[in-house]
């Protein structure tokens, strides 16, 4: 370690992994299982492992069986075998059960809290000698002189809103490693930079995303049936918008409820948060939550693009794994097993070959990719609406993806229809009385925390566009797509447009919706100070 006036302090590792989610931790664990003397570090921007993890989650156990044999003898704190499966189609007033597609049969799977699962994996990695650093954000990539990735730069701490050092200023260090593994999850900000820099997506479709909003409830006694898994499609979404709900009955009268909306929706007036809250007020759903209270809540985007949106996942000095690569299996609505398997596979590959080169081929020849390839046409089938999507899904399922065709994904930010071309969609929302009252009340349950006196981590590349074009064309959709009410238009007579954009960065729950959905692609999400952001409990 060295330190000079201008040079950052340096730590060296054999492998640096960005993100202590299921993919990153699995990779770290496998590396140390195979090669105990390898120096492996994991950097995590959440204040502790699991703090930024939000998922359903029902998981397939196969990937864990492979990585940590006998894991069920010492299970994660939330781990309930699935007992019952149901999928339903909702209208505003009715619920009709429909046959469960084979991908969504959950017999043998487990309901977990992915946050708690990661917090349970982390000490197992540490016991093997992995250095895990929660509370430190990888703010930038360190490039070597020959243009390869050579590690990461940890963000500075103690910088004020204007970018000047405060009394507590601490310069972030550089972590150097011959191989960097990006396991940041959906729309990782470093992964995004690298995909662009190395043109990793030039031969693939744009990535498609959805935003999932979730709450964990303590319900009144007698309402929770542990092990019950419920999904729905239909209301409150119109048939042109893809998405659906999940309700997972856990133990101790706890129920996880959430709603996922694809981010290629076209109505600028649509609010995913409101859709979720409306869903909770459906006559078949509301009674479950009456008399209960919210324990925790938040939001996170997921990747939906599947096989055809998978970018090249290797570049000089670095690999992408898990949802940073885009491996979630949407028809199954599961990504955890894919994340763990890809982390494990990356570790196997690195130990066998001595580096990351060739990993793209290794992954594309593995069951991880085959699983995605088989279901590749199901998600884009819904681009033509719910009914045609269901028909495509049926055909693709029966033929197991063997038809010689591949439907394509489009970029989510390009799907909004301008107000002048938009037929107003009537959304007869009911008056709500279940908590939370609004998005600010909801953010409270994410216990999100950012030092207000730091640079705004949501960079607007061209603020002019917000008050001029965006208002006219889309009526400020950022004020609706953000589930945490980060974006507000404030009346301001001193400005030309009479309005200005206020960014409540401290509310941010790090879901990345804005970075994805903003129609002009002028919102750039960068990481705030390490340790900031939500403090999810059991999400």
């Amino acid at each position, binding site marked *: 370690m060295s330190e000079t006036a201008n040079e950052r*302090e340096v730590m060296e590792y054999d492998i640096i992994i960005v993100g202590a989610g299921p993919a990153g931790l699995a990779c770290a664990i496998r590396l140390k299982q195979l090669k105990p003397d390898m120096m492996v570090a994991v950097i995590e921007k959440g*204040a502790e492992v699991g703090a930024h993890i939000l998922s359903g989650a029902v998981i397939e156990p196969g990937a864990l069986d492979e990585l940590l044999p006998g894991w069920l003898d010492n299970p994660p704190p*939330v781990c309930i075998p699935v007992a019952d499966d149901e999928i339903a189609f909702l209208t505003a007033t009715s619920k009709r059960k429909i046959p469960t597609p084979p991908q969504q049969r959950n017999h043998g799977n487990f309901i977990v809290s992915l946050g708690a699962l990661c917090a349970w994996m982390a000490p197992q990695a540490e016991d093997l000698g992995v*250095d895990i650093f929660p509370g430190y954000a990888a703010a930038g990539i360190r490039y070597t002189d020959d243009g390869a990735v050579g590690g990461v730069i*940890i963000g500075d701490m103690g910088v004020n809103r204007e970018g000047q050092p405060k009394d507590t200023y601490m310069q972030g*260090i550089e972590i150097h490693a011959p191989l960097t593994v990006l396991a940041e999850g959906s729309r990782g900000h470093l992964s995004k930079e690298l995909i662009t820099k190395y043109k990793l997506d030039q031969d693939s479709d744009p990535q498609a995303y959805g935003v999932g909003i979730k709450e964990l409830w303590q319900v009144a006694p007698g309402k929770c049936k542990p092990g019950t898994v419920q999904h729905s499609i239909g209301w409150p979404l119109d048939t042109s918008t893809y998405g659906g709900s999940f309700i997972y009955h856990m133990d101790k009268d706890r129920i996880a409820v959430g709603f996922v909306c694809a981010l290629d929706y076209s109505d600028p007036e649509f609010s995913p948060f409101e859709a979720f809250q409306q869903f909770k007020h459906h006559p078949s759903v509301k009674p479950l939550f009456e008399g209960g209270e919210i324990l925790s809540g938040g939001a996170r985007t997921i990747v939906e693009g599947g096989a055809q949106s998978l970018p090249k996942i290797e570049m000089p000095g670095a690999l992408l794994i898990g949802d940073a690569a885009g491996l979630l299996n949407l028809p199954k609505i599961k990504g955890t097993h894919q994340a763990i398997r890809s982390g494990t596979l990356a570790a196997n590959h690195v130990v066998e070959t001595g580096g990351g080169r060739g990993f793209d081929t290794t992954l594309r020849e593995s069951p991880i990719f085959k699983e995605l390839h088989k279901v590749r046409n199901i998600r884009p089938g819904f681009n033509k609406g719910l009914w045609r999507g269901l028909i495509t899904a049926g055909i693709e399922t029966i033929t197991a993806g063997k038809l010689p065709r591949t439907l394509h994904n489009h970029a989510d930010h390009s799907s909004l229809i301008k107000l002048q071309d938009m037929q107003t969609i009537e959304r007869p929302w009911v008056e709500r009385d279940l908590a939370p009252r609004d998005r600010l009340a909801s953010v*409270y349950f994410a*216990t999100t925390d950012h030092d207000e006196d730091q640079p705004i981590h949501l960079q607007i590349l061209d603020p002019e566009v917000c008050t001029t074009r965006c208002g006219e064309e889309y009526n400020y959709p950022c004020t609706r797509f953000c589930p945490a009410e980060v974006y507000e238009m404030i009346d301001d007579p001193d400005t030309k447009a009479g309005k200005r954009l206020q960014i409540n960065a401290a509310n941010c729950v790090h879901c990345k919706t804005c970075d994805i959905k903003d129609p002009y692609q002028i919102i750039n999400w960068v990481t705030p100070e390490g340790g900031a952001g939500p*403090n999810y*409990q059991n999400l």
Partner: protein
Amino acid sequence: MKILVGIKRVIDYNVRIRVKSDGSGVETDGVKMSINPFDEIALEEALRIREAGNADEVIVVSLGGNECQQQLRTGLAMGADRAIQVDSAESLQPLTIARAFLKLVEKEQAGLVMLGKQAIDGDNSQTAQMLAALWGRPQATFASAVELSGNKAMVTREVDAGLERIEVDLPAVISVDLRLNEPRFVKLPDIMKAKRKPLEVIPVEDLGVAPENDLQFTSHTPPPVREKGIMVEDAAQLVAELKTRGLL
């Protein structure tokens, strides 16, 4: 001079506290834990005193099970020289903690004990005062500024009427308030260094201190839920509404 700093493992200040449904305590399952913020300020001050050359060694002390080693390691990463865990399976009350501290003070020949003014879980604010009494040494509580010179400490205290400056002879006990300083961030390489610093585990019985249970918790209840408000049109309606509720 050696400085002993007490650090307590508490539920993080960001966590929404929930009372267990049977009222037997507060929910800690899957809940983030950290150093009591006031103790972190005490440690920061102790480190600054050492860095200014007025102390040779800073020792962090915590009483509890093995899980509190996590907070001791954070203290070591901040810059403490070594750590002592007084091992106790059960949760200890302030008087027992003060007695245990006294034994450590005697063992280490500490010249200064620095503690948070209170822990954010129990809010007792008792340990510092009890320790000073048992030890027979001066106490300076709720410190918002500390200056050492020779064997004296000039301490500014935050009191109801404003600020009070007192001079105390060392050895002494100082309990610290929020405005004393802003604790430093931990440098990443220092986390690695902290893993190699000494952490001694002493069973509480070995200090000759028997846990006392003079206080018994009978129940825990969350604060009442705020009732839904109404919007009133004007002052007259406000007065009328208050009257119908018997509040005016």
